[in-house]
């Protein structure tokens, strides 16, 4: 394992020190418990937005804290969901009197820890709503399982809800909008290489020199199947077809297309994949109204990509375009 770190168990704290040094003017970083909070939080009268999850997915979530997006992020250890006390603290820190939304990716750990946070917070009468993301079509959906993972759509939910909250929409409206984005969004990912968590020091799975893993998550979990690597056009097709089969859409629909890098894949390749996605979309009569291309929800140094498509309505477009000013996503400000 070769990494730019000081020690495996210091990774999260050291990185947060970097965030504090780099962005101390815009965010407040705390270490016990780990939190990245908007410097001007709580914003009175605005619905507060917090999210959290394991580290190793940067810039998600800490890089998305700022005006127009999240009010706070709770980073856990690498690939380990944060703890209830972090979420409780964050909830209090961002409560401006209009209630707080927890944006939670659907993983057993994340869900249970946010649940406990909500239970523990019952006393402080802060109105809390939860928006669960579960957009990964690589996972079969079923009542008897943990259900689908929350992946790429999470970034889009955080941005769009952030725009709505800035616009003064109330707790219920912002939460409903977030749920709609999730319901209209689907994702699927693939890997060229595994990743190595600092703590384990071992690759999360083994792949031959000519193999790719299709249907991976963002925690180095193995995917649904592996196959010989093909051209980018085939990779794009592998990921997009299950999305389109699962996403109820009709020709003429407007979509947001998000080509996300897993952390170790150069932008050059992500644009090659985007060209293929654009081709496939137009073949299905879809108009890509908005796009996002880059490393936004990553899996350490894993090479690979994920594709997310969200069926857009005017409200989503309006809040996607709204100003955002965070370290990792910024426009109009």
């Amino acid at each position, binding site marked *: 394992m070769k990494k730019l770190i000081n020690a495996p168990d210091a990774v999260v704290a050291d990185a947060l020190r970097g965030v504090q040094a780099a962005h101390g003017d815009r965010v407040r970083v705390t270490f016990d418990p780990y939190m990245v909070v908007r410097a001007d939080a709580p914003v009175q009268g605005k619905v507060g937005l917090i999210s959290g999850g394991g580290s190793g997915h940067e810039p998600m979530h800490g890089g998305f804290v700022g005006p127009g997006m999240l009010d706070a992020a709770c980073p856990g*250890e690498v690939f380990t969901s944060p*703890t209830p006390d972090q979420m409780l603290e964050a909830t209090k820190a961002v409560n401006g009197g209009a209630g707080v939304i927890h944006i939670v990716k659907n993983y057993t750990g994340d869900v249970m820890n946010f649940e406990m946070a909500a239970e523990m917070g019952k006393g402080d009468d802060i109105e809390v709503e939860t928006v669960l993301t579960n957009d990964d079509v690589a996972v079969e959906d079923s009542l008897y*399982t943990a259900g689908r993972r929350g992946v790429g759509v999470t970034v889009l939910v955080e941005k769009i809800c952030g725009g709505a909250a800035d616009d003064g929409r109330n707790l219920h409206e912002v939460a409903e909008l977030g749920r709609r984005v999730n319901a209209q969004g689907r994702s699927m990912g693939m890997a060229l290489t595994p990743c190595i968590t600092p703590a384990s020091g071992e690759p999360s799975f083994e792949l031959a020199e000519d193999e790719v893993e299709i249907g991976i998550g963002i925690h*180095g*979990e*193995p995917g649904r199947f592996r196959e010989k690597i093909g051209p980018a056009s085939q990779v794009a097709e592998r990921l997009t077809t299950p999305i389109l089969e699962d996403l109820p859409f009709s020709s003429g629909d407007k979509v947001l297309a998000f080509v996300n890098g897993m952390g170790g894949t150069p932008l050059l390749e992500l644009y090659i994949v985007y060209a293929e996605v654009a081709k496939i979309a137009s073949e299905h009569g879809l108009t890509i109204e908005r796009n996002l291309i880059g490393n936004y929800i990553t899996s350490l140094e894993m090479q690979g990509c994920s594709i997310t498509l969200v069926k857009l309505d005017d409200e989503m477009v309006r809040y996607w375009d709204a100003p955002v000013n965070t370290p990792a996503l910024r426009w109009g400000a």
Partner: protein
Amino acid sequence: MAINRDTTLDWITRFAGEMGEHRQELVRLDTAIGDGDHGTNMNRGMQKALEKLQSAEQPDPGAVLKTVAMALVSSVGGAAGPLYGTLFLQMGAALAGQAEVDLPAFAAAWRKGMEGVQSRGKAQPGDKTMLEALLPAVEALEQASDLDSGLSAAVTAAEQGMNATTPLVARKGRASYLGERSAGHQDPGATSTFYLFKSAAEALAD
């Protein structure tokens, strides 16, 4: 003979030792069907628990378990944090105020703890989770006539339950994402649960 504060502390100390010793084994198991952090998570949590136990006077077994629960909840994260946290929290509550705990009380506490895990995690037997080890072990305790034999029966049951997870297809937790590919691997959480009973038995044995 019965369980008191010191045997409980001994039990927890031994469990922390097991989590340190078997950290890499649990990481390897979790790497195969999860995200490779179970060993690190449990080890971090149990170290935190030992710290907390030192820092404050622990009147009785219930207090010890409550302290462990709070330490795990606030330091483990992931699935194991809430699950083991709830387990210890419910057990601690069931034993609140008792200086000496006999077999029936101990078994009843385990039952409460297990119910807490079930309502927290919504897993059924057969879903390939820590429940596969927890459920048979608790039942063995309930059927036992004395603590010593009860605990060794529980250890055997937990071990069998742990081994029985290998062929199962996971329906809960991260391993469920693998579908059929999760079969053929032993569940990490069931494995840490086996060590929990093993260290309890050892603490009472001497």
